[in-house]
């Protein structure tokens, strides 16, 4: 959901968000373990710092290109460069080994049907639902949500009607950064964290956007369900080691046969 907001408004894939996933975890862990700040406050401070970093990259790097009508491919490569810088800075400061939060709670497990779920996983699901509902509500009832929809539909027309496109882009990136950072902390709670963990989850988010389409939020939900169902069914019937192959095969099939996803509108292909 978070990635989709930025993707719709900026019309480009921004890989920098992949670096914010581990960065939020490392910063939270740093404040929690070094300064003994309560975990939730440590996470909030981490989210705040990452938003400042994001605003700096928007102002000092991306605004240069946006003023000159950036090509989406150029934006992707620039974001790749910044991702490399941030990810390696994380490695430089905190090292490359797998880290876990030193917490004594969250690992309690509960039986559900014939499966088991931990408290951390319940928290992850609850926060994801909250973010999903929060973004949908915000976009429906708030003025900024309507402005974001206007810019994503037709940015030139939106500017003619007096909508400040740059401000909308910044606000959408703040939404995305905040949601990505929060999810980064929750992922780290469940799986541990290392500097390159963000890239895989970013790609999964991107795959969900491609499968679900960018037009409707319900499409994203279906996309996520299809992706995770394919992954786990494939792991069940074949082997868990083919998890990644199944993920990308699903992606490739959708990119070829349904490139606009479930909720995208079919465009007329230009043929000569």
């Amino acid at each position, binding site marked *: 959901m978070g990635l989709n907001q930025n993707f719709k408004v900026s019309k480009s894939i921004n890989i920098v968000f992949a670096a914010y996933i581990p960065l939020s975890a490392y910063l939270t862990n740093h404040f929690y373990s070094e300064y003994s700040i309560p975990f939730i406050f440590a996470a909030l401070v981490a989210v705040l710092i990452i938003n400042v970093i994001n605003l700096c990259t928007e102002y000092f*790097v991306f605004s240069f290109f946006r003023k*000159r009508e950036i090509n989406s*491919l150029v934006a992707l490569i620039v974001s790749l460069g910044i991702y490399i810088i941030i*990810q*390696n*800075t994380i490695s430089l400061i905190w090292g490359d080994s797998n880290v876990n939060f030193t917490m004594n709670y969250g690992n309690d497990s509960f039986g559900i049907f014939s499966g088991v779920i931990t408290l951390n996983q319940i928290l992850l699901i609850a926060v994801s639902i909250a973010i999903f509902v929060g973004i949908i509500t915000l976009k429906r009832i708030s003025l900024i949500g309507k402005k974001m929809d206007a810019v994503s539909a037709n940015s030139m027309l939106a500017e003619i009607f007096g909508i400040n496109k740059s401000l909308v882009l910044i606000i959408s990136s703040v939404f995305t950064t905040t949601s990505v950072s929060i999810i980064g902390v929750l992922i780290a709670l469940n799986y541990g964290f290392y500097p390159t963990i963000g890239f895989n989850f970013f790609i999964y988010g991107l795959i969900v956007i491609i499968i679900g389409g960018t037009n409707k939020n319900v499409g994203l939900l279906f996309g996520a369900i299809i992706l995770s169902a394919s992954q786990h069914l494939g792991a069940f019937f074949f082997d868990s080691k083919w998890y990644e*192959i199944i993920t990308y095969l699903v992606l*490739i099939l959708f990119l070829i046969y349904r490139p606009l996803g479930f909720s995208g509108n079919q465009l007329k292909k*230009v043929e*000569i």
Partner: protein
Amino acid sequence: MLSQSLVLSSGFTGLISLAHAGFFGIGAYTAGILSVNYDLPFLISLIIAVIISGVFALVVSVIALRSVDEYFIIITLGIQVIAFSIMNNWIDLTNGPMGISGIPNLSIFGFTFSSKLSFLILTLFFTVIIFLLLRNITTSPFSRILIGLSNDEIFTKSLGKKVNFSKVSAFAIGGMFATIPGVLYAYYISYIDPTSFTVDESIFILSIVIIAGMRSLWNAAIVAAVLIILPEALRFIGVPSNVSANIQQIIYGIALVIMMIRYYLKSKNLS
């Protein structure tokens, strides 16, 4: 060799690919499997590796070229991950994460390239051959079709040029050329494992091409040399070896951003 082959398949066509390390890996694993399991000589392994890579590149390009721009990059990323996953998990074929060891010394018509100097000369020979072949391709009318379709595909098609055929050909040729250093690498190191052929390698090769300006073979060679020597230079000035790799990567990232700014300004000035 890797960056120069990517100059053709990505630089000239404008189709940024993250699958190049996969072709590198196909070359290495084909050489490893054929030499260790079937005792085939170097030249036969090389020819078979190039053919396999060419077929793989053909299949990938036919699939991937049905998408455009960022989606093409994502598909090639997917292909790269699939290739790595096969190398890492198909244990019966590739020995999985344990890799293939005991690759014999490279031998051509009875002469064994056992010393580093002799291997260097052989590698230089292949580098020059690949450079000359790519230079001929990139100065031919075919390259002008590739430049045309990267600038305006519909206009190029309207001139009657075979756009899809050109894209597939460029991608397949680039993939086949990328196999050759893979074969040489396997014989040189005599041990290969999947960790040498990851997405990070693809990103590194792509960085070289972008920093070199996308369409220059000479610049790609120079930038590759500089970026490979960079860790040694960092160690020489006293940077500890445990941080030099990260600093090297940070320098790549900064260079990528600067080059895109420069490339963007240059293309805007030309237009």
